[in-house]
């Protein structure tokens, strides 16, 4: 069992606290992705788990051991860095062998492990090469190999794909997911890219300014965001936010439009109404927003339309064949289930 638990974890640099009490339980074999904007403390959290950064307060448990005071090498973890950090002066084989530095194995056993890992990562024929003779994707694979060969309880990945070009990134993403299904170790994966987070994670941890905003499956965080930050961070393009005022079973928009959201609201209370571009449709039954199409971005199977009206500009994703043109007057509506309500002050979702 290699559960990972973070208990009230904080980190300060001097007087500045950058992590403010992180609580998280990760199950054995789970693929957890930390996602959030740059500077929110993802790397710091990961480095604390790895033992590269001192823990200011709180506890980290890996399996049934509290690892706060253990050296990185004794924590049963392996880490893959953003810029690969494979040793440039050694062959691929040597690089991977370094992952087994302390392993109590015979030379032959180590060699067999290295071959095995190279086979899984499809780089058996690259073993004698130097890193300078490898492409970016291959270097990253070597870094993953060096981590894999240790067969650690927990894999730590710090933005491993962000130095790769878009196509390779998609390919490596898939490979990492397959790899996880094959080897089954617990993985903590850090990224600032919400698409990477959504596609890879069993569970996503969304962070901002050193606080966890929400922990949940990709479906959870997409369909039931805990607050406006999560709502706007996950999903592209971002969720539209409209200022509305509650009025019993009705709400009124700043444009004067009234609608039934299918729930009770406190009369006179200002609220934020969130609706995803995907959930908007060009219909006139029960329109939320009426306005003119100012920009059209065809994406192929779908088209983004930017609609400007009395309540500001909002984005909608409509079918690619819908034939909406710039300058068209459209009425955008959504089903009540697709509407999200948030407190104006705190940004928390109302349930």
């Amino acid at each position: 069992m290699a559960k990972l638990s973070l208990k009230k974890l904080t980190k300060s640099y001097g007087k500045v606290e950058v992590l403010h009490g992180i609580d998280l339980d990760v199950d054995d074999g789970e693929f957890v992705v930390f996602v959030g904007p740059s500077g929110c403390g993802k790397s710091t959290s990961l480095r604390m788990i790895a033992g590269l950064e001192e823990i200011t307060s709180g506890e980290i448990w890996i399996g049934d051991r509290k690892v706060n005071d253990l050296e990185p090498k004794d924590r049963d973890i392996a880490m893959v860095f953003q810029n690969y950090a494979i040793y440039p002066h050694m062959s691929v084989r040597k690089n991977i062998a370094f992952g087994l530095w302390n392993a109590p194995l015979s030379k032959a056993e180590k060699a067999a492990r290295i071959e095995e890992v190279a086979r899984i990562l499809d780089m058996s024929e690259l073993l004698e090469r130097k890193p300078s003779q490898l492409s970016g994707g291959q270097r990253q694979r070597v870094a993953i190999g060096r981590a894999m060969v240790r067969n650690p309880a927990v894999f730590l990945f710090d933005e491993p794909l962000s130095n790769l070009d878009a196509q390779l990134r998609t390919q490596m993403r898939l490979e990492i997911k397959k790899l996880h299904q094959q080897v089954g170790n617990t993985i903590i994966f850090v990224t600032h890219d919400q698409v990477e987070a959504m596609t890879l994670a069993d569970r996503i941890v969304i962070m901002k300014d050193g606080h966890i905003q929400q922990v949940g499956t990709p479906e959870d965080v997409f369909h039931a965001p805990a607050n406006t930050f999560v709502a706007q961070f996950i999903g592209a393009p971002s969720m539209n936010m409209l200022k509305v005022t509650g009025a019993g079973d009705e709400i009124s928009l700043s444009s004067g439009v009234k609608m039934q959201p299918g729930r009770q609201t406190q009369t006179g209370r200002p609220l934020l109404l969130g609706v995803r571009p995907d959930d908007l449709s060009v219909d006139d039954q029960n329109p939320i927003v009426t306005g003119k199409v100012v920009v059209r971005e065809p994406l192929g199977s779908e088209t983004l339309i930017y609609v400007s009206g009395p309540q500001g500009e909002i984005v909608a994703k409509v079918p690619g064949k819908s034939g909406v043109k710039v300058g068209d007057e459209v009425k955008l509506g959504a089903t009540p289930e697709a509407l999200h309500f948030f407190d104006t002050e705190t940004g928390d979702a109302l349930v």
Partner: protein
Amino acid sequence: MTAVSDTSELPSVKAETVLSARSRKPANLGQILRWLLLFLGGLLMIAPITYMISTSLKWPHEIYNVNLIPEEPTIENYTYVLEDGRFYLWFINSIIIAVITTVSNLFFDSLVGYTLCKFRFPGRYIVFIAILSTLMIPTEMLVIPWYMMSQSFGWLDSYWGIMFPGLMTAFGTFLMKQFFESVPDDFLEAARIDGLNEFQIWWKIAMPLVKPALAALAIFVFLGNWTAFLWPLIVTNSVEMYTVPVGLSGFGDEVDVAWELIMTGAAISTLPTLVVFLIFQRFIIRGVVMAGLKG
């Protein structure tokens, strides 16, 4: 896998375009001036060496003639110096001292430089400044304290006495610290996770990555010690402990300096520096190439 062949084609294409561009362009005035300047610089560098070799091939009566080609060239001086047993002794002394000092500097300068660069500890900055500030004290000021120290410890007229002031240098420490700045911490952290201890991280990961700096330092320290004169002259008494420069300076008698012999000894003693340079210079050039490929 295709990506590798793609990238490997890039430089060759570039090199070709550069070459053809260069051969097409006619030499302009600026270029001619630059070559002229380089030529003069080269001449300036080679003149003393030529003069040294020329003098070593002359008879004593001819040495104050400035002609480059000796009227009656002779290798008599070489046979004299090489048959004089003392020269061998000095040569071996010099080799021992320069080699040990070089190895010691490579090891300790980079160890201290690495520590100052990669570890955060209280007083780190003060230690660094203290080491740097010793660079401002000239050797001439230090030889008297060194001498007194050697006298009280009984180090006079010994290898240790000649070597101890130079076994570590502030300059080398500073140089290595600066070079370790260019080694990304990620490498060291990766090694820490792999389970290497701090010494192994330094030795197996950080050191190979600063080979060019080590090579430069090796050349520098070796040459410095090979040609050192003032301190070895002061600390040695017996002819058997002399280094090459000290020994050579004593060629001749009280009235006459035997320049032709000094120049002969000097010419012979440039050989090891040439060897050292040829060995380590490769690393410097290769290091530059490697850095180019990494990006």
